[in-house]
Structure formats: C-alpha cells, structure tokens
C-alpha cells in the first residue's frame, strides 16, 4: 500500500502547470519552485522552505551534478517549475533537466555570432519563464523565446548590433505581458538601454535609454559640445526587480565610459551608476537615484535591487536595500527614490559622506591620474553583481563582500572607435604581481579578503561577518529556517547560521562559485543547488 501511494505521488506530483502572471506575482507562496532569477519579484533571495535547518544541515549530501559542456564560467541561477529545472550552459544553450535526477529532457542551442565580444566572458545568468515559454538573452544581443516543453524556438529577435559591442548576459525579467532586458557592453562605448518586448511576438513595447538623448531631462549632465553621450556606456547586465503595487520595475545601471577617464564626459553622466524606477507599462522614468555621479572607478550599479517592507523610524516603509560596488550600503524609499541612509560597508576613501539629498561628497584628489591613485574599494568593488539576500526572518541584509581591497587607478587618453574597448586607462594591482592570479593563494588579509557581511538595514551596522581567505563572486540564499547558503572562489559551498554567521556545513565543489544558490522542493524533499566551476550541484538531506 505504501509503495502504491508513493507511485501515485510519483505520477501526480510531476504534473506541470503553466506559469501564469499570477503565479509570478505570488511566487513566494510556492517555495517549491523558483520562478524568477532572484526567486521572487522582490529579489530577496529568501525562501520559505525550512526542511533543511541549522540542526540537520550537516546531513546534506550531494544528489546529482550537471556537468556543462562548456568551459565558460557558470553564472546562471536555474529556474525550477513543477519539477523541471531550466538553466543555461554558457554561452547560450538552454537545458531542461529533471530536478530530481539532473537528467536532461532537452537542450536548445544557440550559437552566437562571432562578432559578440563581451568584456568579461561569454556568460549567461539564466532564463525567465511565462506560460510555457522561456526567454533567453544572448551574448550576441538577441532575445529568444523557447517552448519550455520541447525546447523549440518560438521567436528570435536582434536587440542591438553585437559588432558595436552590445551583448546580453543577464536573465530577462517577465512582468505582465512584457519581457524586459538590458544590454551589456559598457567597455565598448555603447549607449545602454532597458527595453520591454511583447511576450507573444517579441515586438518592442518600449525602450528606455540609460543615457538621455538631446532634449530629454538628464542630457545636460553630458557635455554639450561633444557626442560623448552617444557612447557613454551605462550598460545593464544584471536582472532588476519589480513592485507590482507601485507598478514600478527597478534596474541598476552600469558605469559611464570611458571607464577610468572622466575628462571627455564632464558632468554627472546620468543615468550611469544609478538605479532607475520605470513604469512597467510605458517605460517612463518615475524616479532615479545616482549612487556615483561622474564615476571614474568602474563602479557599476548593476547590483540586484532588493525590495523590502520594513519599519523605518517607527513607520512601515517600502524600501530598497542596496550594497553598491562603490562601497556604500544604501536604503532608499522605493516609491519616491528618497535617500534614507548611506553608510560604508567596506573601507571607502573616494567619498567622505553624503549631503542632505544623498549626493556623495567626493574626497579631493581621489581621482585617477597618470601615476595611479590608490582607491578603496578597488575596481571589482566592495561587492559587485553577486546576489545579496534579505531575510525578513532575521531582518538582516547579507552582502558578498570584498574587504580591505584596493586598486591603483590610472587615467589614459583614448579615442573612441566604434566596436573597440573604450576604457581610458585601467586599474592596477596594489600588491606586486597582484593577488589570486594563479591557482594558489598567497594573499595576506590586509591585501583583501572575501566575506559574507550581515547588516542591520536600519543603521547599516555590521552584525557579523564570515571571512574567507579568498575573495568571492558567489551570491547568497537565505531560508525561513535561518540558514544562509553561499560559496566563493575557494570552491566551497557552505551553510551559515543566518543569525550569527556560524559555519554549519560545507562541501568542496572543486571550482569557483560564480553564481547564486537557489532552493526548491520536490515530492516533499528540499534541495539546494549551486553552480561551481563548470557544473551545477544539488544537495538534499540524507534519506
């Protein structure tokens, strides 16, 4: 009888329903699935699943491994829809896997044009889903709709010309009847944009240029006597978030170009290094906040905008939590963009604080020059695109952090040539020969280390940190059982107690973790998954 019951469950639980807009809106109410890049529109990377606990996490064991047929970095966070996992094998192969066994149902392969020349690898961070359709943004700047049942392409559109340096690495985000993406390519002098496309046809619904054109508000923050705005970068390469009540979608914008030489682009260079709040239906700008006006340090603001509803000075408030590459932790009012808090979460020497409106106060002399200026945080930032997490249970905000880390910023003259890199200098190592340039690690702690830092969002105070020897490119997942999962360059995947940072469990996954962990449940069993090296690993409690 028991076996018969199991078999009924076996057949019944594997039924898949279409992913409706309503399911996406309420995705945090079906924690057995992971329906968007960040798990939910609020991008908290917090799961209500609680089968794995601080007490039993030591009993986690590996369930299956998916070895990608790719030597590229594995940066994708998979989706799980009713027992089917969808991930991307870099550069642009979508794979449908049985989430219980890792076996492949189908693979859709897109071979990107050789003209695609991204700065930092032919990577991809995952897909979006609506109905029975998956959406993938490609490294040659195409958006492809794929049938989730059989892996067949439904439409395939060119978003931007890859030969001019445009590329896409992010997971799209679906809201209502639109799929929204942004373009990478900031190192190539593109003019970035965020755009929405009809989910059924791929027809463009709206486009928001991240650098305003002539006559548009913000254009005056670019020089009037040159066309610097036409190739000023401001790329978008990490997925945004969405507040359906406000009908606003939030996206982080990359740095201006040339990256390290601000001379050709005097002014604040909007909307580079900003977060923008856009009307989902029209793409109209509701508000923006610029973290780093006239950036010269490659401080992309391409972090994931994390949305939380918390008490703020005695009243409930809809806020946005943001640990920026520039080293500051921010709290913004996400309805208005009002600056509520800014505080360093790592060592910062380029700005001394903020004025009343939240504009950072630059420290005189802290700017790239021909000899090199030592700036904290260094070029990779205090954090970067790595997924942060907010746990409503602990009330803490968790940041993958590069601490004690600096770069020497060198400025150089550079002419803009379409399709070529347009940096205007670059960062130099502050340690002879650099650190972590080989498989072996010789670094001292004061030369930089990686950490998970837990912040109280009300004050920006660090409550605890978990130090690693090496720096980290890994995202963070928190769960309702007070667990925090993350990894790092050292090749460990580990679980911490989200309340105090105590290490509870670790597994050697044998390769750098350059992705965000996620969790799902199938047939009553909770799994956690993480991509590391060239493979995707899943774990569950020993049975």
């Amino acid at each position, binding site marked *: 009888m028991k076996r018969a019951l199991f*078999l*009924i469950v*076996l057949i019944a639980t594997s039924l898949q329903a279409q992913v409706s807009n309503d399911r996406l809106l309420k995705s945090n109410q079906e924690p057995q699935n992971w329906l968007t890049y960040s798990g939910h529109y609020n991008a908290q990377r917090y799961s209500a699943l609680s089968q794995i606990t601080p007490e039993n996490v030591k009993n986690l064991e590996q369930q299956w491994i998916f070895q990608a047929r790719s030597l590229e970095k594995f940066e994708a966070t998979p989706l799980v829809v009713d*027992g089917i996992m969808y991930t991307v094998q870099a550069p642009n192969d979508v794979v449908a896997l*049985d989430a219980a066994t890792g*076996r*492949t*149902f189908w693979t859709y392969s897109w071979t990107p044009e050789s003209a695609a020349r991204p700065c930092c690898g032919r990577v991809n961070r995952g897909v979006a889903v609506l109905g029975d359709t998956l959406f993938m943004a490609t490294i040659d700047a195409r958006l492809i709709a794929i*049938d989730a*049942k059989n892996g067949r392409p439904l439409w395939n559109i060119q978003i931007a010309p890859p030969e001019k340096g445009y590329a896409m690495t992010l997971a799209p985000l679906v809201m209502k009847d639109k799929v929204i993406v942004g373009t990478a390519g900031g190192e190539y002098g593109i003019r970035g944009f965020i755009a929405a496309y009809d989910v059924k046809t791929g027809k463009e619904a709206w486009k928001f240029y991240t650098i305003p054109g002539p006559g548009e508000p913000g254009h005056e923050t670019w020089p009037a006597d040159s066309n610097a705005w036409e190739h000023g970068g401001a790329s978008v390469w990490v997925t945004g978030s969405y507040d359906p009540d406000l009908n606003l979608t939030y996206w982080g914008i990359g740095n201006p170009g040339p990256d390290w030489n601000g001379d050709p682009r005097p002014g604040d260079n909007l909307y580079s290094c900003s977060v923008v709040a856009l009307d989902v239906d029209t793409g109209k700008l509701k508000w923006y906040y610029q973290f780093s006006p006239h950036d010269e340090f490659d401080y992309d603001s391409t972090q994931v905008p994390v949305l939380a509803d918390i008490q703020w000075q005695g009243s409930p408030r809809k806020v946005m939590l943001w640990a920026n590459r520039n080293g500051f932790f921010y709290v913004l009012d996400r309805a208005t963009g009002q600056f509520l808090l800014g505080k360093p979460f790592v060592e910062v020497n380029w700005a001394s604080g903020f004025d009343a409106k939240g504009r950072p106060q630059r420290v005189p002399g802290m700017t790239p020059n021909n000899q090199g200026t030592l700036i904290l945080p260094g070029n990779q930032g205090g954090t970067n695109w790595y997924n942060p997490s907010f746990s409503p249970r602990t009330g803490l905000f968790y940041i993958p952090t590069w601490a004690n880390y600096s770069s020497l910023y060198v400025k150089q003259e550079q002419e803009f040539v379409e399709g070529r890199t347009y940096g205007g200098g670059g960062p130099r190592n502050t340690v002879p020969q650099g650190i972590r340039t080989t498989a072996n690690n010789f670094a001292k702690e004061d030369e930089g280390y990686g950490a998970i830092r837990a912040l109280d969002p009300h004050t920006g105070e660090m409550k605890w940190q978990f130090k690693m020897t090496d720096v980290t490119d890994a995202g963070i997942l928190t769960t309702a059982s007070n667990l925090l999962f993350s990894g790092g360059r050292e090749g460990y995947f580990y679980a911490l107690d989200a309340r105090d940072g105590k290490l509870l469990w670790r597994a050697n996954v044998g390769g750098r973790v350059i992705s965000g962990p996620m969790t799902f449940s199938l047939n009553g069993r909770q799994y956690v998954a993480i991509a590391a090296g060239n493979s995707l690993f899943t774990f569950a409690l020993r049975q």
Partner: protein
Amino acid sequence: MFILVAGPGTVLAQHEFTPADIEAGRQQYANTCLRCHGPDGDLIKEADIGHGKFRRGSTDDDLARMIRNGIEGTPMAAINISEPNALTIVAYLRSMATAAGTIASGDAARGKTIFEGKGGCASCHRVLGNGSRVGPDLSQIGGARRTLELQRSLVDPDAEIVPANRMLKVVARDGATVTGRLLNQDAFTLQMLDSREQLRSFSKSNLREFSFVANSTMPSYKDKLSSQELADVVSYLASLKGL
C-alpha cells in the same frame, strides 16, 4: 558555405556503392552539405546537386575531389574530409538522383489548410508554437528531410521512425500507463514528453514495465488524402524551415 556547382554533365558512377555507403553518406551530407544545399540538394538553383547532373565534373572521383578541395571562385569551400568519406557523400548524391523526380508538385498554401484542417495534423504536430507537442515538432522539417521522405512518412509512417521520435509506454506498479515520446534514458531513469504534453521522469525501478511502441502512432494518409492533397501537404512541409 560548402556549395557544389551543378550543371548539365552526365552522371557516370565508377564506384560500386553499398547501402552502408549511402547511409554513411546521408549522415555526412546532413552534417556538411545540408545547410547550404538543402535536404533535396536543390536549395541553390545554380548548384542543384540532388538530380544527378553536375556542371563541373561527372565522375565519382571528380565529385569527391570538389568536395575535398572546394571550387575556387564560388562559395563552395574545401571540406576537411577523407577521400573515402567524400565518396560516401557521392554515393548519397547518386542515390538521391535515382529517387528524385517522383514527387508531384503541390501547393504549399493548400497544404497548410489541409494540415490544419482536414488532415488533423496539428492535433499531434506543432509548427512554430501552434499545434500539439505530442508528435514531432515540424517547424523546421523542410530544412531537414527530403520531400521524398516527407511523402513516405505520410503514406507509410512505419517505414522509418527516427530515434528522436520513438514512442514509449511505461506501466507503473499500480498499473497506471503513460505513453509519450522518449526524450532520454539511462540505466536507472527515463524521461519523456507524455501524451498530455507533460515532461515526465521515471525511476525504472518504480515501473512494472516500459517498452517502445512498435509502430508509429501516426495514421497513414494513403487513403485519406488524394494524390494532389498529399503533394500539397508535402509542399507545405517542405516549406517549413524554422525561424
């Protein structure tokens, strides 16, 4: 681009080709020639290689040489392939010519109407997002299969079932039966798209039995459609080249 230039030369076969040669050639052709020349070899009008007449050279060795060396001044580039393998492609081209010319010409628009209406094809097959996923997706079938093969599939569906289209029946220990298209399998599990268009994965140890369905689930249209209607449907299918 690997494009042979065809013309009015006479077909002269010098090698004795076996069925195994032809099959090997079919696979070589699919890997190296099909994308430019198409499944019937006539995608490039001035370089029709599917009907046995070649503009440059006529012997097997001539053709093998052109495949291996390319043709200067044309998009036909040299293919890095051994002489025996090049000769298998020649074997396949010869076999294509032998079988060519037996298809009545059809009207693709009428065929589409039959496909979606009288023929009931969309109840099992999908084209660019429309129709059922239970049978093979036909969105790109015209770029992959010869018209001869398409016609044969319509009148004699059992004649050839490609491995990716094999149907499976699994029976759970409680007797529940699921049929569908096999997508993958290993020693312990199998994956399929079932008749309700659900992706399913089974542990073999939980199944009473599982077996391939011997015959195609597709009916023969030999007596259901007229010759002209069949030609129309074939013409429609041949026009399906994907996105």
